[in-house]
């Protein structure tokens, strides 16, 4: 606990300055940051040397829980959302199959290098499922999923590299996060959402 908690004025200042309502990140800015990181050229040697001089690695504790934590992270980050390269070979190879066809959605937006990203959602009784996110202005009708005979719903969307927040809309009304993807801490408008990271090739 911070020693500020013992002073009512400083304690309240602290709460004010920690209020998320005032400093909530813009999901677009977060995605733009990742895009910039991937796109930024590696600095020249003298720049790296200067940075190294200004940013020495800090000492600290090596963790004893590395293996367990790595397992946990691997568990949490696995998900049903994958780039096309990572899909089942049948689905990713090109020609659609009856078991797991790749349904490409049309997408209108600025022309940047986009990566085919497949969304897969399981819902046995839904009449319709669509995906909404920061990439389609959360429009419920923009990206409908196609129902497969095995009960899965799927659509493949070309997305720009970066971080995207999304959710599924069931029967046009119920908005749910992807149960097999990391939760977004900054869901738009208070709605629950999930995160997909799209990497440039």
């Amino acid at each position, binding site marked *: 606990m*911070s020693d*500020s908690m013992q*002073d*009512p*004025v*400083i304690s*309240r*200042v*602290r*709460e*004010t*300055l*920690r*209020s*998320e*309502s*005032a*400093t*909530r*990140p*813009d999901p677009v*800015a*977060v995605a*733009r*940051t*990742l895009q*910039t*990181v*991937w796109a*930024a050229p*590696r*600095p020249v040697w003298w720049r*790296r040397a200067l*940075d*190294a001089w*200004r*940013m020495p*690695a*800090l*000492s*600290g*504790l*090596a*963790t004893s*829980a*590395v293996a367990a*934590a*790595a397992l*946990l*992270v691997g568990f949490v*980050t696995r998900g049903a959302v994958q780039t096309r390269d990572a899909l089942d070979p049948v689905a990713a190879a090109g020609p659609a199959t009856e078991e797991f066809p790749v349904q490409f959605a049309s997408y209108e937006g600025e022309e940047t290098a986009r990566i085919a990203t497949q969304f897969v959602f399981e819902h046995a009784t839904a009449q319709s499922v669509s995906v909404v996110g920061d990439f389609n202005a959360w429009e419920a009708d923009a990206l409908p999923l196609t129902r497969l005979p095995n009960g899965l719903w799927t659509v493949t969307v070309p997305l720009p590299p970066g*971080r995207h927040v999304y959710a599924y809309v069931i029967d046009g009304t119920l908005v749910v996060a992807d149960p097999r993807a*990391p939760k977004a*801490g*900054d869901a738009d408008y208070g709605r629950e959402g999930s*995160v997909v*990271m799209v*990497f440039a090739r």
Partner: protein
Amino acid sequence: MSDTPPNTSIDPTLPLRAKAGDRQAFAQLVDLMYPRALRFALHMVGNREDAEEAVQDTFVRVYHNLGRFRDDARFEPWLFRILANRCRTALGKRNRHTQLIQYGELPDRVGAQSDPERDWTEEVYKVLETLPAEQKEAFLLRHVEDMAYEDIAAVTGVGLSALRMRVKRACDVLRVRLTEMMQDE
């Protein structure tokens, strides 16, 4: 306050995986640390545009220098050291927020709130703006980011006794300027 994000520590394996070339791990680091980094930058530089730029520059530099990150080091102080440098650079360049304060306008970071709460928040930001940058930096790292003085020393490169004095002076100013307002509510 229910919407206060926790200052949780990150999984120490994430930076190591990112250093080993795992892009997903680095993306997770950004996802986890962006809110705290933006909060600190926003309070330091006073406007969202400069703060987002400082945070973005920070993550780019972190990514390009991951190879130099020691395996036994802690990631958060390292990131905040880079971020604090970017904020100092941004502070040297900007004057827009100062103009806003001088003309009595409310910074855009203040959301819709009831009037007493809004007045309080505005006053907190105004007093914060009057603090010397080194005092504000030390105060934010200690009392908002909950960092230990040893970590703040690593971030700022300043000795412990000097840091404690900076934090104390910042607290004194905030207390003097805000106690009366708090009692009036």
